């Protein structure tokens, strides 16, 4: 076998190796499939309101309330979140809306996560308690929700309220949505069954804009 021939064979071997590695990476980076999407959607559908039967004039059961100025509601904010299957213990901060972008104000520290303070608190009998956290950041590395997409149906987690009470939840769904298509109204709903919604980023990363394409959404119900 000539030297030239040996070089050619080596090139072929290197080529095969390169292809194999690239293919392995491609397969390995396929996102995990959505689970429980139907169940998550069913939780959001608001409890059917009684049909709006016109109140007959003369019905003496009209609700009457004192027109006092509205007071602060008794909301119980979550202050700590523990998700043992993915080894997360994080401080939860009450957060709102970024005035410039109109987007959810995820806490700047990637070790902490943010509870949407305008939505329901842990005490709520209806609606979605939303906690969002960073998957990672360019300057701080991996975030509290780096492994959120590994959660599966049946996994349990615990949210501790400002009242010191632990509330356990069971994961029923994990979904991935393109950010332009995610039905945020459903996850930020204040009606429907009581549930906890965890949100982070995922999917392909665009290094130019430094943004992920997708959101990962985990839905859990009181265990």
């Amino acid at each position, binding site marked *: 076998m000539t030297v*030239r*021939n040996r070089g050619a*064979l080596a*090139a*072929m071997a*290197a*080529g*095969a*190796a*390169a*292809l*194999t590695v*690239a293919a392995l990476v*491609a397969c390995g980076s396929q*996102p995990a499939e959505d689970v429980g999407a139907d169940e998550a959607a069913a939780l959001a559908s608001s409890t059917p309101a009684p049909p*709006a039967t*016109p*109140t*007959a*004039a003369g019905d003496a059961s*009209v*609700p*009457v*309330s*004192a*027109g006092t*100025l*509205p007071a*602060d509601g008794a909301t119980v904010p979550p202050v700590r979140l523990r998700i043992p299957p993915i080894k997360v213990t994080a401080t939860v901060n009450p957060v*709102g*809306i970024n005035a410039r*972008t*109109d*987007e*959810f104000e995820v806490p700047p520290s990637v070790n902490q996560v943010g509870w949407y303070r*305008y939505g329901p608190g842990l005490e709520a009998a209806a609606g979605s308690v939303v906690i*969002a*956290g960073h*998957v*990672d*950041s*360019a300057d701080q*590395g*991996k*975030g509290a929700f*780096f492994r959120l*997409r590994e959660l599966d149906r049946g996994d349990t987690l615990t949210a501790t309220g400002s009242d010191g009470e632990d509330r356990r939840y069971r994961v029923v769904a994990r979904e991935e949505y393109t950010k332009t298509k995610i039905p*945020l109204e459903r996850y*930020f709903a*204040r*009606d429907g069954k009581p549930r906890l919604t965890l*949100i982070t*980023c995922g*999917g*392909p*990363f665009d*290094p130019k804009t430094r*943004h*992920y394409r997708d*959101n990962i959404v985990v839905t859990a119900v009181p265990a």
Partner: protein
Amino acid sequence: MQLAMFRRVAAGGAVAALTFAGVGAATMSPAYAASSKVSVVHGIPDTPVDVYVNGEKTLNNFKPGDVAGPLTLPEGEYDIALTKPGEAIDKAILKVDDAEVPGGANISLAAHLSADGKPQITPFVNDVSKVGAGKARLIVRHTAAAPAVDVRAGGEPVFEGLTNPKEAKADVDAGTVKADVVLAGTDTVAIGPADLNLKEGTATIVYAIGSADAKNLDLVAQTISGLHSAPGGVPSGTGGQAGTGVGTWWYVLAGAGVLLLVGGGARVATARTARR
């Protein structure tokens, strides 16, 4: 004395023709096209009443400062009458015939004093469009026997020159503001200050009621919830370590692999051909 005045109003046939027409077209939503939500706000001091709708008693001993409803009323025309508690409807102290309620609207009927102190009923159409995430809607209605006023929040005028029976409104950042009502263009406080908790995703409607002369000016509030919007998005990663999709460099590597394979294969093939 006030009651006597009411009777005079009724007897004199000083009945305002309430017209909500034109409201319906703008606010109609197909699902509820046939009915409207109607609340009643009592803003006449010291005068509890029974409220009759189409001759039927709907509210018993309705007290000043209270808010009733919302009632769901099919669109149509309604006769509304207020009586002293327990009195017959023919002794109504204030009545409005053929008040037109359009379909698909959210309406507040305020029983209140006019600028010169006469009892009247004014219909207001409530803006129940969605507010942006993080926002609350503040609506202020001048329904008091008082001159024009300014409404201030944190000492700064937010609504100026408001007169009876007009309203002013704005969507503002949710949260608590210290608000007061001053005579228009002055620092003379007429009502307040009071802490207003403007809850996100709600409309807080504040009625200034009572009479400046009788020194019983006060505030009545009505809240409409469910007007919230979701945030524009949840941006929660800038690192790229969790990226799933296949990066460009992996495509380059795969391409290089293909080139090497093809190139090497061709080389081997030509070498074999040459040896023959």
